[in-house]
């Protein structure tokens, strides 16, 4: 089985349902951020009361100018925000942002890649439902779904202003109720979890784009051939 053949199957599946693919690829990021926003509002039982737009291009230009190492530069740029919406608590002092949803372009890009992979897996699942066994379709779907959850989880950009803790993907878990100790313990594995997520998505694609097994294609019926009127 060549990579070209797999790619061809994937391409055929996508081109067969271009609107569906585009709908998922564009709709997923929107739904993803809408879900995060809804999670905040539901969790804290309050609407946001402030929004800030950041000069992302200007800030990135400044980082490029002032950071000698390219590897440092990229890591810092990846932390830059474009937009923030959240709730400010004015009970004390000049106000403190209690929670917020941040739009970080680097993260948005990753979510868009995730969305494209989900769209591709979905179209492949539909295209190959008559060619693959149920076990393969269900298995690939589950592996792809798990990958999507892992990547989605590690790209959460919620902040819960916790004094000296910086915003991180585990803040999302903490907000959603996971214990602080468990969240902090998980933080160190963020990259690995994200890589595992993408690996699962790619595995799902490979599994779905492979050829149907001959044994499955010619799977004998559990009924006696004679009973079905087949020639003896």
């Amino acid at each position, binding site marked *: 089985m060549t990579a070209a053949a797999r790619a061809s199957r994937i391409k055929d599946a996508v081109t067969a349902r271009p609107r569906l693919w585009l709908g998922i690829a564009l709709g997923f990021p929107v739904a993803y951020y809408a879900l995060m926003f809804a999670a905040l509002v539901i969790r804290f039982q309050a609407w946001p009361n402030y929004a800030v737009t950041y000069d992302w291009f200007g800030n990135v230009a400044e980082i490029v100018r002032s950071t000698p190492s390219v590897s440092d530069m990229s890591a810092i740029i990846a932390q830059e925000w474009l937009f923030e919406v959240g709730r400010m608590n004015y009970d*004390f002092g000049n106000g403190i942002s209690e929670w917020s949803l941040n739009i970080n372009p680097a993260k948005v890009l990753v979510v868009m890649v995730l969305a494209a992979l989900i769209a591709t897996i979905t179209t492949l699942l539909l295209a190959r439902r008559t060619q693959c066994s149920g076990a393969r379709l269900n298995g690939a779907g589950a592996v792809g779904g798990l990958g999507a959850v892992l990547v989605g989880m590690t790209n959460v950009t919620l902040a*819960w202003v*916790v004094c000296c803790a910086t915003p991180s993907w585990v803040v999302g878990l903490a907000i959603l109720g996971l214990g602080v100790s468990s969240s902090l313990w998980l933080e160190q594995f963020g990259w690995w979890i994200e890589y595992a997520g993408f690996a699962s998505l790619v595995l799902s694609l490979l599994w779905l784009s492979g050829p149907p097994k001959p044994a499955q294609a010619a799977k004998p019926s559990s009924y006696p051939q004679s009973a079905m009127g087949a020639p003896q």
Partner: protein
Amino acid sequence: MLRHVTQGLALGALLAVTAAAPAQAKTIKVAIGHQSMCTDTYTAGIVVKELKLLEKHLPKTGKYKDVDYDISWADYSSGGPITNQMMANKLNIGVMGDYPLIVNGAKFQATDSLRTYYVAGTGYNLKGSGNAIVVPVKSDLYKIGDLEGKEVSTPVGSAAWGMLLKAAQDNKIKFQLKNQSPAVGAANIAAGKIDAHSDFCPWSEIMEFRGTGRKIYDGSEAGVPYLHGVVVRKDLADDYPEVVQAFIKAVYDAGKWIKEDPIRATDLMEKWTGVEKEVLYIYFSKGGHLSLDPTIKPKWTEALKFDHTVLVREKAIPPLDFGDWITEKYIRAAYKDMGVDYDKDKAMIVDPAVANAGLPNEIWHARDGIKEYATLPEFLGAIASFRATGAKINSTYVYDKETGLKLFGKTAFWVVTPKGEFATFLRRGEAEKYASTIDGKVITFEDAIGMKSS
């Protein structure tokens, strides 16, 4: 992988944009991240900003003759975001507490090309006071041991979090830790929704002053000094050392200005920060929690190293080379310029138990200001008299007999001796112990006043 590819593409485009930027007259950017809701940072933050002390000291001669300064201030509720902004060079000076300072140094040292220097302190409390664990005022919890199995919240990553972890280790207790921002923690204490909340200055005192919370554990019990300081990006310090020195001179001036007239200072700081002046007074007055001193003492380095080990255990933060990070170069130069003896100041450490012995108790009269009383009976008698005339009292201050720490009169534990003398304590346990040794009894503030109103 994917992330690096996308970052690379973005960088390429932006390098082209920045390369095309036109040349301009020389402007030095001084962008400071400070915390208006953290009292210990005020001498390098809000006071310097509002009094324009940095502008006063910035160099204007020699190589700085034709320089324009672009000074900006950004207010944060915590140190973590300040570090992030410093990494992006949106800020090049940051003011924060001990644990966030360590995170700052370690995060920068984890990069290939960026570094910060710890160049000066702002203030400290030798005993570690400033952080505290507070319970709802009506709670039946009175000591840290009572927190076994309870729900305790804290801003994770803060100095108060570090203190909480150490307190739990020292007292061998386990509780359910919840991550909570200061404002939310304070609100939950007020509503009685959490068993206890651990926070940094001045949150515990805000809760006490507002009558919603009561301290059951003070940072002084952890036995590790609590300090705040200033970190500066290496590129600013290397290119413009005189600017860093100017900032340190401004920090020194801010401390001097506060010490000259704490009432004036707290009155203005209330307007600038929104924190009640009566709360600020417990930090910035004579005998207050905070010793304003920018010098870098060996004891501070030891405390920071200890704090780093706590963070390494709990958060797996990167290593930190303290020798590369902490430098006295700039502060020594600043002190020399000002004609102040750095080594003398560095050698001086204020221990509240010694320094506050014999200080008068105080009543903040709403109309007449601070009034001092040498003894507790006089102090109580004055309160009773004021109340009898309907005079408004803003706040009252006494000292903990054990540690010398300044306390609100209303939150102290009072002991009356058989001879009718009084003593005040931060913690009930120590008050009870003292009472048992002198055959006295523990009473409330109101009871004590009642004994003097006749």
